[in-house]
């Protein structure tokens, strides 16, 4: 069996449930391209994750088009990570956040020299935002600015 086709699956489900069809983002033009200029082993990597991860002590995300983000220090204790979201099964993410927020994985790869270093913070948000316009106009520019301020060489995006 090939990969799950989510677009027709969700279209059918919404239709069955009487919802309007969801308008998927579609970018038929070639995407903008920034060539990689340094080897991974010499690069500073910024992690950006949309699974609704926050640190105990931070205000949790709400679930109605929350366009805020959280900055999570790269030294965070994994046991202090929390997950809140409405659109996916969080059981495994809450048991081991690395399945949607691979902080220990990336720290290990830095330790073995595969990645040069991590940016001081990872950036997280709750990606269940139905307005693509608000993501584009409100959330994305702010996270981009923070990642640029961190002088990251590369950004890894982890959706759910």
């Amino acid at each position, binding site marked *: *069996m090939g*990969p*799950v086709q*989510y*677009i027709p*699956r*969700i279209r059918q*489900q919404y239709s069955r*449930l009487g919802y309007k069809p969801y308008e*998927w983002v*579609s*970018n*038929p*033009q*070639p995407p903008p*391209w*920034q060539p*990689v200029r340094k080897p*991974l082993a010499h690069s500073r*990597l910024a992690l950006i994750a949309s*699974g609704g991860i926050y*640190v*105990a*002590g*931070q*205000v*949790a*995300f*709400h*679930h109605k088009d929350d366009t805020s*983000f959280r*900055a999570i*220090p790269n030294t965070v204790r994994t046991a202090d990570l*929390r997950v809140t979201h*409405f659109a996916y*099964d*969080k*059981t*495994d993410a809450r048991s*081991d956040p*690395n*399945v*949607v927020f*691979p902080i220990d*994985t*990336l720290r*290990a*790869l830095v330790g073995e020299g*595969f990645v040069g270093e991590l940016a001081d913070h990872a950036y997280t948000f709750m990606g*269940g935002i139905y307005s693509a316009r608000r993501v584009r106009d*409100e959330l994305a520019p*702010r996270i981009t600015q923070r990642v640029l301020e961190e002088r990251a*060489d*590369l*950004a*890894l*995006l*982890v*959706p*759910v």
Partner: protein
Amino acid sequence: MPTLCMTSALDITRSVNPPRAAFLDYPLGHTTGKPHQPQLQRQIMRAALEAFESLTAPGSVKLLPFVWSADETWKLQAFSGQDERTKRLDTPQYQSEQDRILAEKGGTRETNHCPSCAQWHGDPARAR
């Protein structure tokens, strides 16, 4: 800045068409691996990050060579029934009550140091 998107939804990613992507054929909620399997998580991540150097055509997707399980019935079940999303409330939805109490007290030394949210600076009373 060069970017790489992980994904477990290949058709959605092709529609969005980011510069570079690495696709992991796992159920949603496991974009970067299986829980408590750090060695596998690292293998997945190395294979994904390697795409920064190997993908040269904008819009390319690297298909990662990992299989969730021999039994693929999970693929039939995704979005095949009722709407499993929980109700969307516009107040902070804490994982636990203790988190709410801690955040409302102003957080910890580690968490109230920086503007961690686009809309407020650590004061829950000013959120929203």
